[in-house]
């Protein structure tokens, strides 16, 4: 079912008086006594899943997602995904990297003569005379400043992307559905989450079937 073979017990607390049913990993997602997470509908081509997504958006669903083996063009508009903040984070990291490089080279290579008050000896700068070149040789510092700019921005592009995507997240209720197995291969899954205000187990499932979903599945926590 999932990569991590022992999912935690369902989070639902049974109503007062109801006997507590122990977690049974043999139960399928449909039988397990827990609250729903999402309804999934499987499609086998881009056109169908796009049409279904547009229809779902038109019907008022907002908390939904399309799981695909590769990025589909136009799905952002269909799902109403807002442009990510990532480029601004990368820009600010790049500017930070550039300033870091500028300060590092200028400070350590000696625009100031130590010792300085409150600066530990290990951090003291000194005027570093090499072949009679000026102490502040900006041209010679550019490679280091440039590399630090790239390093800060590239690290931010990667790590901020994963964090904004809330990854790594090794346990995800979606992995309990067999439909997710082929999402990394050749299938497209439209998932409508239970937290959506228009969500209803039966209605949403019926809606997905009407949109031509080959299979549907109710995923629970």
């Amino acid at each position, binding site marked *: 079912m999932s990569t991590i073979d022992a999912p935690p017990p369902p989070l639902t607390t049974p109503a007062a008086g109801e006997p507590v049913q122990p977690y049974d990993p043999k139960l399928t997602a449909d039988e397990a006594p827990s609250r729903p997470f999402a309804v999934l509908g499987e499609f086998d*081509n881009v056109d169908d899943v796009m049409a279904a997504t547009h229809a779902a958006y038109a019907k008022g669903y907002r908390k939904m997602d399309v799981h695909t*083996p*590769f990025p589909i063009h136009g799905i952002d508009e269909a799902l109403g995904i807002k442009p990510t903040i990532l480029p601004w984070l990368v820009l600010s990291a790049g500017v930070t990297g550039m300033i870091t490089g500028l300060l590092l080279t200028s400070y*350590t290579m000696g625009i100031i003569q130590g010792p300085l008050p409150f600066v530990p000896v290990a951090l003291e700068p000194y005027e570093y005379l090499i072949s009679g070149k000026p102490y502040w040789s900006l041209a010679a510092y550019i490679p280091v400043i440039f*590399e630090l700019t*790239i390093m800060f*921005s*590239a690290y931010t592009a990667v790590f901020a992307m994963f964090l904004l995507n809330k990854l790594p997240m090794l346990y995800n209720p979606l*992995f309990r559905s067999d439909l997710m197995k082929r999402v990394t291969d050749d299938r497209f899954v439209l998932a409508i989450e239970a937290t959506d205000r228009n969500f209803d187990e039966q209605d949403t499932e019926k809606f997905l079937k009407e949109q031509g979903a080959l299979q549907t599945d109710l995923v629970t926590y």
Partner: protein
Amino acid sequence: MASITPGYDVTLQDPHRNTGDDATSRAPLVLGHLDFKGVTDRVSSVALAWPAVWWWAMFVPSVALAGLFFSLIGYLFATGVGIWGNNSPNMWGFPIINFVFWVGIGHAGTLISAILFLFRQNWRTSINRFAEAMTIFAVVCAGIFPGIHVGRPWLAYWLFPYPNQMAMWPQFRSPLLWDVFAVSTYASVSFLFWYTGMVPDLATLRDRCKNRIGKIAYGIASFGWTGSSRHWHRFEKAYLLLAALCTPLVLSVHSVVSFDFAVAQLPGWHTTFFPPYFVAGAIYGGFAMVLTLAVPCRYLLGFRDIITERHIENCCKVMLGTGMIVTYAYAAEFFFAWYSGHHFERAIFLFRLGGPESLGFWALVVCNCVIPQLMWVKKFRLNPWTILIAAMAVNIGMWLERYVIVISSLSNDFVPSSWDQFRATWVDIWLFVGSFGLFFTNFLLFLKFLPTVAISEVKTVMPAAHAHGPSHADDHEAHGDESAPKGAH
């Protein structure tokens, strides 16, 4: 991941060839009537099956060579750099030659993954993973050589600016320190670029792996990727930004490597012309290595429909083009030496033509400027044997180029009394050979355990990946409601 959509020629007659020159339609990049599932199966079967005989036949000698490499490094640490042929004035010798050689090879991978991505060259998708892996393993080999050359390698961390009890800072005006920053940034950013692109494909392997250990390993490595469109949205943005950052990075790295030479005062080195010359040479040598690896792998891994003849042909064309730039650079160097009127500069270039290293020089001219001209002929660009001959010639020639640049200038400087010839020792030679063992060990492990082709990226350049595309390779019946809003391309 972004790709240009319209105009794929899906009415192709022969499903196994796409090397036509018809400019009115875009040639398909995946052949053999493969659909999405076909691509997934073809690529993941390599990673999930028990390795083939050829894999073991190459892996065992590679590991042996890598073992020799590390043993010799142990010998070096125990004895000192005197076991090398380095002398005064040839202080640099093999370590810098091998360093420049391996870093240069890495550049083709970044060119394919970043620069061709920005240029929207969709054919890059089949070979970029592969070429990026080559980049990383080449940079690993490259990084070792200056590391073991510093004399006391256990103090190599002194290269980094950190507060210390000696109150010492590194010398930021030195090109060798620029190298530390350039190569460490390049290595780590290339790794992140490679790994980020690989996460969706690791998820594919996670979902197809039957073996429990593999499932857990791929599960952790793929970070819980679900293929969510919201994730893809940020992923594509991050990928584009990384490509845009890697493009100036890769050009800067070999420029900085060339500054190691150009900032020095030695005749034959002290020229403003080195950065573009070195970058072209790096891409030239890198594409030769891509071809050396890709041509056999197409056959051995069964990827002939994914890494098609057209991909190989395109690489040959890039190799030929950069080769012409390099040839021009050789000629220009001689012209500059003559036109400069500088006595020592002229002497160095006359030494190259007829001095003690002239054999190396003429061999490099044959390897880099003559043999690759085969690639002008289309028939030769489609024949794996002629491609391999040309690519191997360039591999050898690019190493010789660095040898000639380093040794001819160092051994004959301004004062004849300080001249000395360089003679490589057996340790020099086997350390270089051993570095190939390390490279191929890493590369073969990559071929076995990781997604060798960017599965998700290849799918984006297939016609069926686009809403309202001309046809669908898979046999579904129900089409979407045609009145539904169309996706913006």
